[in-house]
C-alpha cells in the first residue's frame, strides 16, 4: 500500500493520546497520589493530541465536509465505529480534564471517568486496528498481531510521554515510577512487532497471477496493464520507495520506536538524568511514524498483480 501521511499522523498521535490517558487513568485508579493539577494538564495534552490526530484524519478524505456521514454504517464498518469512538474518547478525556481543572472540589472525580477512559481507549485501538485486520486479502494485516501492535505501541508511546510530562511539570517521582512500566511495555511492543515482521516475512501470497487471471499456465506474464500513464491503481497500492529505502525503514523504525526509547528510559532511571525522558519523546514519535509508514508499505495488495507492466 502507499502510506498516506494523514493516516500515519492520525494513528500515531491518537495512539499516544490513548496511551497517555490510559496511563493517567491507571495511575489514578491505583492510587498513585498524583497532583490533580498535573493530571489535568496531562489530560489536556491527550485531548490536544487526539484533536490534532482527528484534524489529520480529515486530510485523508476527498470530501472532508461530508465526514459526518462516516458515522452511519457502524453495524458493518470498523471505520465507522472508529469515527464514533474517537470523539467519545476526546469528550471523556476532556470531561475528566475539565472537572479536574474547573471543579471546586476536583477530588470528587469518581472512579467512573478513569475506568471509562480505559475502556474507550481499548475500544478505539481495537476499532483502528480492525480497519486493517478485517481486510482478509491483505495478508500482512489480517492477523490479531495487528490489534496487539496498535494497542501496545500506543501504550508504549503514552508511557514515555507521561514520563516526560512528569519530568517537565515537576513530578519526577511519577516519571521514576513509570520507568519500569515504560521499559516493560516498550520491550513487549518491540517483541510483538518483531513477531509480526517474522510472520510477514514468511507469508506466501494466496493470490497469484494464475488465480488473478484464471490462466493456470506457469509461464504467464503481463505484457500490458492497459494504460501508459498510471492510474489510481498504480498510485494507491504501492509505496514507490526503493527496496533499499524500504529495508532501511525497517531498521530505522525499530531503532527509533523501540531501541533508543528503551535505552533512554534505562538511562533516566539508572543515572537519574531525568531529561532523558524528554529526549525520548520526539525520538519515539519519529520511530512510531516510521513504524506506521512501514506497516502500510509492507502490505502487499493483490490488485497489484494486475498492474505490473506498462507497455
Amino acid at each position: 500500500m502507499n502510506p498516506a501521511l494523514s493516516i500515519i499522523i492520525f494513528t500515531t498521535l491518537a495512539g499516544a493520546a490513548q496511551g497517555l490517558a490510559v496511563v493517567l487513568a491507571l495511575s489514578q485508579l491505583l492510587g498513585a497520589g498524583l497532583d490533580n493539577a498535573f493530571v489535568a494538564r496531562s489530560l489536556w495534552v491527550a485531548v490536544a493530541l487526539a484533536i490534532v490526530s482527528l484534524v489529520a484524519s480529515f486530510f485523508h478524505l476527498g470530501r472532508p465536509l461530508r465526514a459526518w456521514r462516516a458515522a452511519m454504517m457502524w453495524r458493518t464498518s470498523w471505520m465507522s465505529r472508529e469515527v464514533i469512538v474517537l470523539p467519545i474518547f476526546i469528550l471523556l478525556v476532556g470531561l475528566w480534564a475539565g472537572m479536574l481543572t474547573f471543579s471546586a472540589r476536583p477530588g470528587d472525580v469518581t472512579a467512573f471517568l478513569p475506568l471509562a477512559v480505559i475502556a474507550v481507549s481499548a475500544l478505539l485501538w481495537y476499532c483502528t486496528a480492525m480497519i486493517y485486520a478485517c481486510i482478509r486479502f491483505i495478508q500482512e494485516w489480517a492477523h490479531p498481531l495487528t490489534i496487539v501492535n496498535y494497542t501496545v505501541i500506543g501504550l508504549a508511546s503514552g508511557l514515555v510521554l507521561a514520563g516526560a510530562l512528569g519530568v517537565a511539570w515537576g513530578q519526577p517521582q511519577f516519571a521514576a515510577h513509570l520507568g519500569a512500566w515504560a521499559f516493560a511495555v516498550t520491550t513487549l511492543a518491540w517483541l510483538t512487532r518483531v513477531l509480526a515482521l517474522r510472520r510477514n516475512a514468511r507469508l506466501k501470497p494466496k493470490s497469484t497471477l494464475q488465480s488473478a487471471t484464471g490462466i493456470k499456465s506457469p509461464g504467464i506474464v503481463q505484457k500490458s496493464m492497459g494504460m501508459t500513464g498510471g492510474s489510481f491503481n498504480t498510485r494507491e497500492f504501492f509505496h514507490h520507495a526503493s527496496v533499499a529505502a524500504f529495508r532501511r525503514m525497517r531498521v530505522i523504525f525499530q531503532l527509533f520506536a523501540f531501541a533508543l526509547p528503551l535505552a533512554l528510559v534505562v538511562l533516566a532511571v539508572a543515572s537519574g538524568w531525568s531529561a532523558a525522558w524528554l529526549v525520548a519523546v520526539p525520538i519515539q514519535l519519529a520511530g512510531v511514524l516510521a513504524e506506521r509508514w512501514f506497516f502500510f508499505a509492507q502490505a502487499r495488495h493483490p490488485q497489484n498483480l494486475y498492474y505490473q507492466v506498462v507497455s
Partner: protein
Amino acid sequence: MSTAATQETLARQLALVIDLNVCVGCHACVTSCKEWNTSGAAGPLADLNAYGAEPSGTFFNRVQTYEAGSFPDTQTIHFPKSCLHCEEPPCVPVCPTGASYKRAEDGIVLVDYDKCIGCSYCSWACPYGARELDAERKVMTKCTLCVDRIYDELLPPQDRKPACVKACPTGARLFGDIKDANSEVSKAIRERGGYQLMPEWETQPANHYLPRAVVSVSGRDVGMNVENGHLQMPADDADAPEPVLEA
C-alpha cells in the same frame, strides 16, 4: 431502491461474461465505457494531463494483455477487467457512509456519489482493483454495468446493454442474469467452463471469464484446458475437453 444485505441470496444478478477466445484487445469497450459514463449519470470522469507524457484518468474498464507459455508455443491473452459485481462484495460492508451498496433487485454494486467521502477504504477492500477514486471529483467511482442505460425504455431494446457490450466488435462480452439458468450468460458459463477471478477470497464474482477452447490451427491444437485452466500446447491434447472446434 433497496440494498442487499450481507449473505442475502439475490433472485437476480446481472453480470458480464468475457470470452477470452475472441477478445482481440482493441480497447473499444474501454473507450465506449469511458464515453458513455463520462457523459452520463456516473460522470464526468477525470482526465488529467490528457495530452502530456503521463496521461491519467478514471476508467471503469481496462483491457490488459498477458502472455503465457514459452517461445515458440506462446499465446497472447487480452483480458478485459472491470468491477466483477461480487455476490459477496468485500467493498460494501467496509464503507463507513453507506455510499457503497449492492442493489437487491439486480445485484449491481454501485456508489452513491453524493454520500461518498472519498476515503478510498472500499478500494483497499477490493482485491481486484476495480474501483478508482476520481482525481477531480474526489469520490470513488466504478463500473455501474451502465445502470443508466440498461433500464432506459427510451432506447430500443437491443441497445439496453452496457456500452462495452454494445461496442465489442467480436462479441467477446456477454451480458445477462446469471441467476436465470436459461440466460445466455448462464448457458455460456455452464457449457464453456466459465470461471471467476481469485476464487480464493470467496467474493463470488458475478462476472465470469470463458477460457480458451482448444482449437486446431494448421494441425496444431491450441487453447486452454477448461478443466484445469492450463494452456493447451501442440504436443499432447489427449485430455482436451470436447467439443474440439475445427478452425
